[in-house]
């Protein structure tokens, strides 16, 4: 107990020892995590949108007009048995015409002169979640067009695909920005800890002489780094939250009208916690780095 109290007290002394550099370290960690957080917010929000859109992906399988009742039922059987298919509904020629009339009442005269119903019957397929990636859908659709009785196969892919690509890029961006800035903030924290290490070199030497283990000597410095990092993480959350609310405010009525507002979400609790933990880990790593360097220099 006494030992723990001592270690915590020493860490606090370290933090007080050089306030300016401590502030710089906290600020840089906060900045790092805030930049990363912007990407993460974008990523999480867009990914949410994409997956809700992907839920809506429907593949429409148009049928040849001459298909017999038996052929139709065989085809239905066959589609049902495909792994890609979650649900299947049949739209007859008559139904298609009725739908068309209902959706485009002013254009329905276009069909008038054609006499016979030109619209094909179709199956509307809802894909099972596992096969909603654009690549999988593409493969399957290609295969489907060769099935007898099947005419065209249509699905709304392009813009969802583009969005998915964008999300991929953002993911990459987040990793790159996160990586580079993390390295920077580890370096800054490491140099902060290094300052305390050199300022307390004599004390460290004394601790060694009275039989303190390496771990005992290191703990206050690791604690110092972890605290700096975690505070930086907390600060970055505050910055992000502020920015996020400001952005929503800027969006104002337009956003509400477009329904964007309901899509925009701040980090859920566990992600916020992860960001603080990331700060803590950065700080811990920073002090570990400086301790290793210090250990090499002093032995």
């Amino acid at each position, binding site marked *: *107990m006494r*030992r723990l109290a001592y270690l915590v007290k020493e860490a606090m002394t370290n933090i007080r020892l050089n306030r300016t550099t401590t502030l710089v370290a906290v600020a840089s960690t906060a900045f790092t995590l805030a930049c990363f957080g912007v990407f993460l917010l974008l990523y999480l929000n867009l990914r949410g949108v994409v997956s809700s859109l992907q839920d809506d992906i429907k593949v429409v399988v148009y049928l040849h007009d001459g298909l017999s009742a038996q052929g139709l039922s065989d085809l239905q059987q066959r589609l049902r048995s495909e792994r890609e298919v979650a649900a299947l509904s049949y739209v007859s020629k008559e139904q298609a015409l009725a739908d068309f009339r209902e959706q485009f009442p002013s254009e329905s005269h276009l069909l008038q002169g054609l006499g016979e119903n030109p619209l094909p019957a179709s199956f509307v397929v809802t894909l099972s979640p596992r096969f909603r990636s654009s690549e999988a859908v593409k493969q399957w659709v290609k295969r489907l067009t060769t099935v007898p009785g099947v005419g065209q196969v249509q699905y709304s892919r392009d813009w969802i695909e583009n969005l998915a690509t964008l999300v991929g890029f953002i993911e990459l961006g987040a990793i790159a920005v996160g990586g580079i800035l993390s390295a920077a903030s580890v370096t800054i924290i490491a140099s902060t800890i290094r300052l305390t290490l050199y300022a307390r070199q004599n004390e460290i*030497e*004394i*601790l060694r002489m*009275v*039989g*303190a283990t*390496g771990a*005992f000597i290191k703990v206050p410095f690791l604690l110092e780094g972890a605290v700096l990092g975690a505070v930086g993480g907390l600060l970055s959350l505050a910055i992000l939250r502020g920015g996020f609310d400001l952005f929503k405010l800027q969006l104002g009525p337009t956003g509400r009208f477009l329904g964007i507002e309901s899509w925009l979400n701040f980090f859920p609790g566990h992600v916020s916690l992860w960001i603080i933990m990331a700060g803590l880990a950065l700080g811990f790593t920073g002090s570990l780095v400086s301790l290793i360097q210090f250990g090499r220099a002093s032995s």
Partner: protein
Amino acid sequence: MIQLFHVSKYYDRRPALSDINLQIEKGEFVLLMGPSGAGKTTLLKLLFGAERPDDGQILVQNRNVARLRPSDIPYLRRTMGIVFQDFRLLPKKNVFENVALPLMVQGASTFETRRKVAEALKAVGIDHKKDHRPATLSAGEQQRVCIARAIVNSPIILLADEPTGNLDPHLASEIIESFKVINARGTTIMVATHNPQVMAQANRRVLMLEQGKLIADPKAGL
């Protein structure tokens, strides 16, 4: 208790100690004498694992210090007390906390710490200053705090490097008397000094070092 076999230590290829052979029994009080630069500090450093010999073997309580892993050195030091010429007290901690340090790093209980620190402070006669910061104490008092810290853990061996170096003759003599009392309780003591007063007053086995060589040791017939 302490044995050295053909021990040599070089700094930048210059020998600080060469071919030292030495044996110290449990409960002995040994003086390590010699002019400045003779290698006294180096010898003590080898004993508590602050330096490693370039040649030879060192046994301290049957542990081969020359081969000790760095992670084992703290445990070696917990069986020893070390007194420095420059005291090495923590300036921001009071006397009690300074003396308690060796117990604290081992995780001793509060109760045990209080008892042992009080005992050690009493043994060197400085218990009335336990709440003072080192800077408010005289040199003699600081040295006594340093000794209290060295004995608080009931060490088997006490090593002292020029413990009277910063003290006037009167204070120096008080320090020697404390060592004698500590030694009488069974602690093996080795004091490095170039102060002849210490030699005269202690009146114990004297090892003479000169330019890194052991030139006098009554026990070895040198």
